[in-house]
């Protein structure tokens, strides 16, 4: 059972409020009509499916209903960080060990994002409700 920190609500909530939505950071070809069948099939169907660090999209279905990203270890199920759409992960398969040493431990024993930079600040702007 996951205890997930929603980066929009800024709170830990139970797994049942969330729904996983597959691999994060997939980029849709800018001009679908001009790509080959191979490229289009790769975009639609082929996934990394790693045993280890995985960046994945979740939706806070029964909460704020916003999509966000989680970096998680698929072998231990440990959630390493959660970050907003448009941001880049600070923990990747390449630097996971370093981050483990330097990261900030959260109350539930996971590791929390430190200073993840928005990839595109416009995507990250909040509209006042």
């Amino acid at each position, binding site marked *: 059972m996951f205890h997930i920190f929603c980066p929009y609500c800024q709170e830990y909530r139970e797994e049942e409020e969330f729904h996983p939505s597959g691999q994060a950071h997939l980029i849709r070809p800018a001009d679908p009509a001009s790509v080959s069948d191979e490229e289009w099939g*790769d975009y*639609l*169907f082929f996934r990394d*499916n790693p045993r280890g660090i995985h960046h*994945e999209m979740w939706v806070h279905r029964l909460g704020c209903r916003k999509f966000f990203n989680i970096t998680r270890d698929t*072998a*231990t199920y440990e959630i390493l960080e959660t970050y907003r759409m448009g941001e880049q992960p600070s923990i990747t398969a390449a630097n996971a060990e370093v981050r483990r040493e330097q990261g900030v431990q959260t109350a539930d024993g996971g590791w929390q994002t430190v200073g993840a930079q928005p990839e595109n600040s416009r995507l990250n702007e909040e509209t006042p409700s």
Partner: protein
Amino acid sequence: MQRYSGFSLVKHALSHHENWQRHWRNPAPKKRYDVIIVGGGGHGLATAYYLAKEFGATNVAVIEKGWLGGGNTARNTTIVRSNYLWDEAAQLYNHSLDLWKGLSQDLNYNVMFSQRGVLNLAHTLQDMRDVQRRVNANRLNGIDSEVVTPEQIKEIEPALDISKSARYPIMGASWQKSAGVARHDAVAWGFARGADALGVDLLQNTEVTGFKIRDGQVYGVHTNRGDIEAHTVGCVAAGNSGVLAKMAGLKLPLESHPLQALVSEPLKPILNTVTMSNHVHGYVSQSDKGDLVIGAGIDGYLGYGQRGSFPTIEHTLQAIVEMFPMFSRVRMNRQWGGIVDTCPDACPILSKTKVKGLYFNCGWGTGGFKATPGSGHVFAASLAKGEMHPIAAPFSIDRFNTGALIDEHGAAGVAH
């Protein structure tokens, strides 16, 4: 191999059953084989068995990182059926069902295949349309499927709640009488014993750590017990297929998810058949030992740990109690999770790859057990001839780029 029979039982009783032969040898790896199968689960062992028995390839090794049949073969709900919608899938699963019928005799090993039938319930008008469409498609493919009414369902399975006051009233079902269940461990052990007797080396506790590839042709594998050479390598590694593919520099359209199942305390006989429902989303049968064998959906996130989340168990049991209110106070005994390699179209991949001599048999997702003999048979034929068997050919990995998908989400019975 000493054959099992009534006579052998009596003979061994005289020596207090202390002199039974071991099921299989535990050989040291040879330097070279003709064919290497990576993965010693049901499908891998079946492939090795049929390679040796029907295609004359006895210089074969099965490489398994743990013990034989310790993965999904030991972690499923043992349902065998062939009521799939599309011609390609129906042929594959029906080929398998045909082999199931004679499997115990063929292997000289009791796999306890019991053709007790399977009900696929419909709870809405759209469900009924889907059931009728699938039954019609099945009958065109020679599969003994039929549509049954709630009254007929009650006769088949009296414990089901068919009342109008149910939250999701049952409007009908498809009924495949020749479907059933089998003893999952016995399937792995039977194939292993049969393959071993025909000269196949079963290498347990041997983990493949890489492939030896030169000029686009595979010529062996690296393992933790040294390098082993072979010019034909078949990977049958279920949830770990993606990890193997990465070693060979390939990518697969698979996602590995935990799929949980659970069994109750043993009860007196109460269920006659296998009952599945896509709409309330659960399936249940009763084993010969008496426990209810229960399964439902996958955990939605990627996971290689052989466990899942509690909410999934809760939803599973909600579905079972919706169908069988009388089970509300039955206690659950054990729960487990397998890693299923789900494909975008809920059909398997039986395919050549860009690497010559390297074949993959994977993507069976949530429903691979029923296909164990059929998958092994057609994959063995493909490995032996170097050309995909006609039944296996439509399941090429190319379909994800050409668009010739075989969408079996409706017949798969497990949402993913």
